[in-house]
């Protein structure tokens, strides 16, 4: 990759992170808190997705 292209990608990435970071902070402030039970459900669902991907890798 040409160096100017690398610099352009880096600058774009920095701009995106700078633009997104305040939104992440705002989201942290305004997002409702989930209970332990809510998070347990999310962990179980994402674990199921992970297991499914593992099975797909074994099948492929």
């Amino acid at each position, binding site marked *: 990759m040409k160096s100017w292209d690398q610099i352009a990608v*880096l600058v774009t*990435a920095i701009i*995106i*992170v700078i633009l997104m970071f305040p939104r992440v902070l705002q989201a942290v402030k305004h997002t409702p808190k989930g209970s332990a039970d809510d998070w347990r459900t999310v962990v179980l*669902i994402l674990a199921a*997705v992970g297991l499914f*991907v593992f099975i*797909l*890798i074994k099948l*492929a």
Partner: protein
Amino acid sequence: MNDRYIVAGAGTGTLVTNKLIRNTYILLSMTLLFSAFTAGISTFLNIPLPGVFITLAIYFGLLYLTEKFSNRGLGLVFVFALTGFLGLTLGPLLSFYIHQIPNGSRMVMVAMGGTGTIFLGLSGYALTTRKDFSFMGAFLMAGILTAFVAGLAAYFFQLEGLSLAASAVFLLASSGVILWQTSRIVHGQETNYISATVTLYVSIYNIFVSLLRLLNAFSGDD
């Protein structure tokens, strides 16, 4: 442009929610078909990737325009421009897997089937249980931002392990986004079907690309 065609309404009634869900899934199906079409054209004509900078610039530019015009009819034009462009970027990737990787065609089919199953399973779960996943918003934004930075660092420094970790985080975060967005639609927190479609489409795209990457790395054929 009349907003009633775009925004389902401010109420949270079942009719409004059902209409929003129906509009979102119809538009999502149409955008998926359209991007499959542009990916096919890109594969057939051997259109090369325009480069990371141009790809990122066009992607974020179209994403911005889609969100900016999401309450107007013009938003639909940008949705198709965005998804068509993402389809075009898939063409070279699919060509690479099909022609350069042993068993690549099978991997592409498995990734497609896997992506469809993950999307239908998660969306179906959020729709049928009607659980509120809005508490995941900040967690998902932080996860996606981290994966984005990690992916770029892996690309710059050619770190294979970090690249795979970023793909795994993208896959899980995008799965979370499907739960979160579907739940927002069900609970009336999302009233614009253009925004909802774009969020779901980008999640499906991320899951497909990440899954393909993980299948290639761990299936033992490379």
